């Protein structure tokens, strides 16, 4: 069971400097700086509501940057980070009326902007252990299987940065092992992964602790 071969990324570096984020009039965090080099992962840790998800959404371009700068060097030039990143949020972005394979094929075509070879879809489904369910409508999937299918998206389309929000939620031990090995492969290829998680990752990661002290009401 080997995930599809990925081209290596080289010289990637993601730098956040003095970032501040405001959501719903509340300052979630401010003065946040971090630096992740290629082939390494950053684990975001901290209590609930401290801004882990907000930071990932900010990196994905879904929440505006209030202050500070965010740069990705070594990626495609003149391309926003959002277009070079995979975002795996709390929601799985699956349509219950489409089959497992149709769901993944759509996202693979949409995200890559071109035709996708069926072998690539099969390989991605195989990597998350859903190949036997390819023709099953997504409405019949369990929460863990939905999570696996969402994960297959990251395998089917190659992107240098992975933004993972609680990626282990709903996954069983076997699913978590697959997830960890997929992340490890991604890092081996030179990619970057940021994960907000309460689970200990089985490989060396740097940790960014978000402190609740930054939580304050905006004046």
């Amino acid at each position, binding site marked *: 069971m080997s995930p599809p071969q990925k081209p290596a990324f080289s010289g990637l570096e993601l730098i956040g400097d003095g970032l501040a984020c405001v959501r719903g009039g509340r300052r979630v965090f401010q003065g946040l700086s971090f630096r992740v080099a290629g082939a390494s992962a950053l684990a975001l840790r901290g209590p609930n509501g401290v801004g882990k998800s907000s930071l990932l959404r900010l990196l994905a371009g879904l929440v505006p940057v209030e202050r500070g700068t965010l740069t990705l060097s070594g990626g495609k030039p003149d391309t926003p980070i959002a277009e070079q990143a995979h975002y795996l*949020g*709390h929601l799985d972005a699956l349509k219950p009326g489409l089959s497992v394979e149709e769901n993944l094929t*759509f996202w693979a075509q949409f995200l890559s902007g071109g035709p996708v070879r069926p072998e690539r879809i099969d390989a991605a489904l195989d990597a998350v252990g859903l190949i036997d369910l390819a023709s099953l409508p997504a409405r019949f999937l369990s929460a863990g299987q939905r999570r696996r299918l969402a994960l297959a998206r990251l395998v089917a389309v190659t992107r240098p940065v992975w933004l993972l929000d609680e990626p282990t939620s709903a996954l069983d031990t076997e699913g978590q092992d697959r997830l960890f090995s997929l992340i490890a492969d991604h890092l081996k290829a030179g990619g970057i992964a940021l994960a907000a998680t309460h689970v200990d990752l089985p490989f060396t990661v740097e940790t960014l602790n978000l402190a609740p002290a930054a939580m304050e009401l905006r004046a």
Partner: protein
Amino acid sequence: MSALSALFARELKLAVRIGGGALMAVVFFLIVVTLMPFAVGPDLNLLARVGPAILWVGALLANLLALDRLFQADQEDGSLDLMVMAPVPLELIVTVKALAYWVTTGLPLAIAAPLFGMMLNMPSEALGAVCLTLAAGTPGLTFIGIIGAALTVALRRGGLLLAILVIPLMVPVLIFGILATSAAVVVTSPFIQPFLILVALSLGAMVLGPIAAAAALRFGLE
């Protein structure tokens, strides 16, 4: 533009699957049109005279039916997040979704309208006009409607608010649609002028609607 064609194919597929509601609008349209003879009474001349108005109001309401789910369904399951992140401009994504909605909702209405017009005792010359004006006018209704759909994307029961927001904006389309259709029934009134204005309204909505809807979606996502 393969991302957009993939999106278009997916929208059509979802519309015809279980829970998609591609033909629900036509069935609703049929019910509205069927109700009218019961309400107005068996006066065939009167029916023929109000026929264009009934068809247009029915089509306008039927066109609103599934509109509130257009972006909401994607927002609820997280698809919209991924679409906003895509390199394709959100305006084009909105346009493609609206076009797919029109193909599964507005176009069937226009095709079914001549049949329903016969139930209203409309003269045979008017049936073609109804089909033509609805085919030209329903894109306008859809592209005005998507602004409301985008504004109410995060609201749980946004359907009613959507209707209140967009129906006033649809009044010009309705006026010129009915005017052009009536021309086929009432010989003295011209057809081409109101029809051209109707086409202009639709084209204008197709330009402005996606821009407004994309702006509303970006604002609503945060």
